[in-house]
């Protein structure tokens, strides 16, 4: 790899201590400036529930919640999370019990190969927190950025409707 032409060699991509909340727990770590949240979660922490699909914003497989809002971990620097709340699919189950959305995806066959599922569930989780009673159009809009090659989406939408319904 070529050396950076302009870059002063000293201060590059410093590792800094970053404190944030991860799945409800206080978390502090040394993270270099260029490290992306997806790589940090999967490789740094072994939290491999968050998936790498396209690695460029196009598939939604890497969806996590930052301060409760769906974001793409592949286009977010880990350092940006300092001072914020990060939630991944690993944080949804409570003491081994599936969350209502997880259970709905399981029971309504909203998951097949499972690769898109963590991102789908996190995107849907973000929607249900903002809008606990979404109509079908709202569900489709919230999940428009999540691509699934297996289910044809119908079962996914039914799963989200079912989770919203059972919460009512």
């Amino acid at each position, binding site marked *: 790899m070529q050396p*950076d*032409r*302009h*870059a*002063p060699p000293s*201060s*590059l*991509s*410093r590792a800094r201590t970053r404190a944030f909340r991860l799945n409800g727990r206080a978390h502090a770590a040394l993270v270099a*400036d*260029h490290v*992306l949240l997806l790589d940090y979660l999967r490789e740094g922490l072994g939290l491999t529930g968050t998936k790498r699909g396209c*690695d*460029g*914003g196009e598939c*939604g497989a890497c*969806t996590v919640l930052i301060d409760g*809002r*769906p*974001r*793409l971990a592949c*286009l*977010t*620097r880990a*350092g*940006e999370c300092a001072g914020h709340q990060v939630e991944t699919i690993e944080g949804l189950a409570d003491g081994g019990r599936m969350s209502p959305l997880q259970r709905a995806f399981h029971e309504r066959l909203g998951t097949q190969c499972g690769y898109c599922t963590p991102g789908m569930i996190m*995107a849907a989780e*973000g*929607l249900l927190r*903002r*809008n606990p009673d*979404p*109509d079908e*159009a*709202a569900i*489709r*809009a*919230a999940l*428009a*950025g*999540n691509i699934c090659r297996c289910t044809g989406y119908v079962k996914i939408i039914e799963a989200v409707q079912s989770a919203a319904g059972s919460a009512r």
Partner: protein
Amino acid sequence: MNRFDYARPATIAEAVALAAEPGATYLAGGTNLLDLMKGDLVRPARLVDVTHIPGLDAIEPLADGGVRIGALVRNADLAHDADFARRFPAIAEALLAGASAQLRNAATAGGNLLQRTRCAYFYDAASACNKRTPGAGCDARGGETRMQAVLGWSEHCIATHPSDFCVPLVAFDAIVEIEGPKGRRECPLEHFHRLPGDTPERESDLAPGEMITAVRLPGAAAQFAGHARYLKVRDRTSYAFAIVSAAAALRLDGETIVEARLALGSVAAKPWRAHAAEALLAGAQANEANFRRAAEAALAEARPAGANGYKIELARRVVRRAFILAHAGTPARIQALPASPFATGALRHV
């Protein structure tokens, strides 16, 4: 991704000073910049992260009925601001027609203006691209031209600016507020993006080190609220960049058009304001024949940049349809499929 020096200024003055270094680049939501860095297509020596500067994330109503949108207002927050969406519905519709919920939660107003083209050759490091490497040539010429420009292109570059947000903004005379080493200034959005000419690497009016601090809409823009639409035609109905889009708005006195606004997206290296078409409609009756004439006028100077002549006829039809929709009236609620020609009903998606 290259290694870079990372700076997080707390004030605009600090940011401008940090960005004065050669190789420095501003970082906002990162949805475009980090993607380009991952592909090694841009290699900034320093990132000046402006997201921690207080005060740049406000949506402020102005005395004249207009609004100032801070450069850091996230696309989702602007689209979902009820007062903003009520007064500038075509802009909210354009925002919701862009990208995905996850991306709109990250993307900022300033970053949206400065997003780079989606030309496939620009994104492919192995292709020759005058925008990436001035003088290297343009592999898009004679290549895959389906999505490329039909207005304002040059033999040096035929790429388009892909933003949805910018299209209604330029139709409504938005003004870009800028701060830089030489102080504060503003620039009408219409003159902010540059046509390629023989310097396609120069994409905007910004001088090195200058940053966007806000985008302002004049009060006159809100007078179109009852008849303002954005229409976006794309390969699939959601989560795709436009092939052609249009923002069309009317101010009516009965069936007479007092004033019309029209801009087109994804047809040129800038959001394309169509003044000639607007002039034709002023004082005319709001009917299909006149919308057709306006569409002809808007595309009068269009020429294919290869095998994309279809975009010219498509753009005429999009303009006509956008005016028909604007004439029918802004729906009370934004449709389930924002800006889609296939949208029916008025289901709101929050």
